[in-house]
């Protein structure tokens, strides 16, 4: 009998006062779940904002506070790194656009509070990619050790180069030239996003708020890996709440239509409304007319609503795992044409089988 389900978690996040009713045993489980979902520090901030932190038991405070300290250290590190990267790339006249976690931290959005950011993602023009990679590698950034196959995946099919790691600081850098894989056939006209970029903190280029939301929507609904999906959807509902004015919705409609991702916007608004009670905006009606069907209802109500559950043994059920598997297959199909997908899955599943039998580090390069 599971103590919590994904709806409970969402309720706690939108109404933190509900957590006042929890027993310490329940907190023990919730701390594990929120930590695994990368939301523990966010919960700290929600309680602080509500003036509800100090009244909690020491046991709860210690774990929440530790999560906050860790996330805050990361936040400062991200800001520092982005400054250093800007200074470096400025030498070749490249002004990178920061994406995802780095974007939120640099612009100081509500969802950046307590957000765990493990990598720094940035976007540079494809024409500058080689120069950028060379300059970074000449300045203490090195390629992560990956298999030859994965290297080929990144360079030929994906919208990014293999991750770079800073030799001294261990920071991971993902350099993108598009917001989605070219091989999928659904890559975006990146010039639209570049021209809409804004400057925050006096020196950092980031996507504007509507484009940031669209990028996050694409990243969520086109992905084969839903590990961080609950956190990502919570991000989206916070971003939409913070930035959702008329100008925002106009821009989002425009850019989603130009990029061919309106259906995904519909998915996002529908599930956010169901899970996080995010009010449906004016554009929802038009999207619903176009995209509501038995299939999309099934997809949202039976697949997404389950797969979005954070991956944790305290939450998992058979149907949730099945939904996640569906997403896994779907995500791969979306990313690659069939002939490439088949060989990709064969290679990946071969590796996984060997590792299951012989051990997880069998393929580690020494």
């Amino acid at each position, binding site marked *: 009998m599971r103590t919590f389900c994904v709806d409970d978690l969402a309720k706690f996040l939108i109404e933190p006062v509900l957590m006042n009713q929890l027993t310490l045993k329940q907190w023990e489980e919730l701390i594990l779940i929120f930590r695994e979902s990368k939301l523990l520090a966010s919960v700290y901030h929600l309680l602080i904002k509500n003036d509800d932190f100090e009244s909690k038991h020491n046991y709860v405070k210690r774990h929440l506070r530790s999560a906050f300290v860790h996330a805050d*250290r990361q936040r*400062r*590190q991200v*800001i*520092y790194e982005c400054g250093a990267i800007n200074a470096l790339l400025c030498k070749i006249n490249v002004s990178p656009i920061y994406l995802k976690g780095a974007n939120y931290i640099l612009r100081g959005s509500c969802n950046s509070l307590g957000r765990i950011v493990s990598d720094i993602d940035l976007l540079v023009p494809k024409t500058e990619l080689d120069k950028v990679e060379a300059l970074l590698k000449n300045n203490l950034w090195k390629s992560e050790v990956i298999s030859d196959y994965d290297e080929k995946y990144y360079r030929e099919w994906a919208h990014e180069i293999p991750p770079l790691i800073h030799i001294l600081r261990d920071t991971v850098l993902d350099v993108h030239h598009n917001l989605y894989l070219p091989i999928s056939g659904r890559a975006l006209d990146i010039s639209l996003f570049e021209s809409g970029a804004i400057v925050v903190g006096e020196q950092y280029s980031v996507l504007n708020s509507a484009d940031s939301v669209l990028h996050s929507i694409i990243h969520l609904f086109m992905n084969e890996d839903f590990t961080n999906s609950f956190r990502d959807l919570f991000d989206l509902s916070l971003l939409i709440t913070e930035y959702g004015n008329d100008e925002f919705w106009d821009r989002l409609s425009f850019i989603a239509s130009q990029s061919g991702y309106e259906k995904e916007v519909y998915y996002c608004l529908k599930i956010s409304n169901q899970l996080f009670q995010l009010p449906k905006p004016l554009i929802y009606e038009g999207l619903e007319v176009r995209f509501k069907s038995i299939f999309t209802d099934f997809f949202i109500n039976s697949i997404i609503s389950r797969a979005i559950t954070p991956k944790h043994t305290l939450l998992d059920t058979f149907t949730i795992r099945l939904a996640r598997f569906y997403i896994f297959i779907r995500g791969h199909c979306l990313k690659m044409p069939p002939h490439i997908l088949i060989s990709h899955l064969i290679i990946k599943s071969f590796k996984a089988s060997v590792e299951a039998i012989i051990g997880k580090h069998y393929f580690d390069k020494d």
Partner: protein
Amino acid sequence: MNASYVLHAQTKLRVMQDGSGIVLFGGLNGRSVFIQNRLFGNESSFEKFTELADSLEHSDSKFQIQSILNLSEDEALKVETWLLNNDFISAYSH
């Protein structure tokens, strides 16, 4: 070189009471730096050290480590340049 610097607003500095040197914490990059007093152990340098050390801890005063830590000109330049490039100190503006 007589370039003047101040501590960056987010830098914290601690002077070691035994005169062995100073420690800086960079609020921007989260790093700590340990700089030795080259004449540690020397009686008269200790007196001078304690005299000047107090002023070092105030972020609005000029950051001058050459005489306090008894560094050569070359060493002082190297240290100051490194601290500047790593955002521990910034140029002093009047």
